[in-house]
């Protein structure tokens, strides 16, 4: 029975393989384009598309707070892309964002650490992570790579969520943004494609006691409200990390900055589930899939969020 299933799926898979002539990212490209099409269609005209996409939103919200005709590139702004109210605050805060001094601190960290310099001679690499390491057959995240570099040089690992880690990453992100780098995730092998698929399954699978998937809120739910919170859309969700959250910065400014992993952990907890470990295979594959969905968009980190 099981063998039959494997056989038939293999056949289906084979068929798609022939169609795509051995391009390992073929399925991922299809997914990415479908996500863009969906997101653009959804936000084309919220008022008009109400029945389809926003059945529970109020008239006032649709008319006055959800922008129309949003460009693909703008979706990197998270919910500020469509939220007119949010955009005002965002622009004001971006005028002189609280993370600027942290980027400078990140530059100092970089300049003071020979090991990091040797591991990352190019500082404009924020858009290239996570990548699939063909030799090791696994996804390598920027956070993981930095810690591995430190350990190899006989130094202590850094906290994967806050502190030095996002501060150094903020420097990389700022350098990448300045160099006008784009998100550039590749899927070089079949194993990489499988890792991508596992990440995708994680994103779309309902989990936790609330039975929510990541997609419930950020694909189907994007643009809707949870109480007073606008849900951000999946497209462009990873382009701007590390991120400075006003919520995190409440006690200490340096603490306001967090890695993508820190944000993910919070979000998965909100689903009512124990989140996977920051540097686990599951987390890295999830990030790998998510980053691929933002492929081709500008790296625009660090950024500021609620």
């Amino acid at each position, binding site marked *: 029975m099981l063998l039959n299933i494997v056989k038939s799926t293999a056949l289906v898979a084979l068929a798609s393989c022939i169609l795509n002539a051995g391009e390992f990212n073929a399925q991922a490209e299809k997914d990415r384009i479908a996500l863009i099409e969906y997101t653009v269609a959804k936000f084309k005209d919220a008022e008009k598309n109400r029945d389809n996409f926003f059945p529970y939103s109020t008239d006032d919200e649709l008319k006055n707070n959800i922008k129309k005709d949003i460009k693909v590139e703008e979706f990197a702004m998270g919910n500020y892309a469509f939220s007119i109210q949010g955009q005002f605050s965002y622009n004001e805060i971006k*005028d*002189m964002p*609280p993370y600027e*001094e942290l980027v400078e601190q990140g530059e100092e960290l970089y300049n003071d650490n020979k090991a990091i310099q040797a591991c990352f001679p190019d500082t404009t690499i924020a858009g290239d992570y996570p990548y699939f390491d063909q030799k090791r057959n696994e996804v390598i995240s920027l956070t993981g790579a930095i810690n591995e570099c430190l350990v190899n040089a006989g130094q202590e690992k850094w906290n994967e969520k806050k502190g030095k880690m996002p501060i150094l990453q903020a420097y990389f992100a700022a350098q990448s943004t300045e160099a006008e780098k784009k998100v550039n995730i590749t899927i070089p092998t079949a194993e990489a494609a499988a890792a991508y698929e596992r990440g995708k399954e994680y994103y779309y699978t309902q989990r936790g006691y609330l039975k929510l998937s990541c997609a419930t809120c950020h694909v189907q739910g994007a643009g809707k409200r949870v109480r007073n919170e606008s849900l951000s859309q999946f497209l462009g969700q990873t382009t701007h990390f590390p991120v400075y959250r006003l919520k995190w910065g409440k006690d200490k*400014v340096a603490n306001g900055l967090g890695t993508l992993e820190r944000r993910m952990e919070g979000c998965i907890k909100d689903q009512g589930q124990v989140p996977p470990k920051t540097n686990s295979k599951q987390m890295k594959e999830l990030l790998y899939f998510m980053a691929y969905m933002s492929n081709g968009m500008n790296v625009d980190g660090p950024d500021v969020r609620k």
Partner: protein
Amino acid sequence: MAKKTRIKAKEKKGITTAKVMANHAMLSYDEAKRAKKEVNFITSMIAKVDGVIVYEVSTSQFLSKNPFVQFKFKGANKGKELEFTWTDLKGNTQTDKKKIK
């Protein structure tokens, strides 16, 4: 404590726009009580060009932490130095300078 005040000042068509972010915890009475720290916040900010006051404000405990202010004034040229001073409740003051671009 002695972290620098971040200043950006740009002149365009005779009007200088200055954006300033001071480095201060701005602990209000309530916040200080909660954090079991001493209350302290910036009580006044002054900006000068060539010794002439171009910005002056008396402030309260309700400015955000690391307060940001932006102001505009006439009559300064590019290359002049903007001098920004804050004073807090405990009497600490800090002055930073930046050339107008």
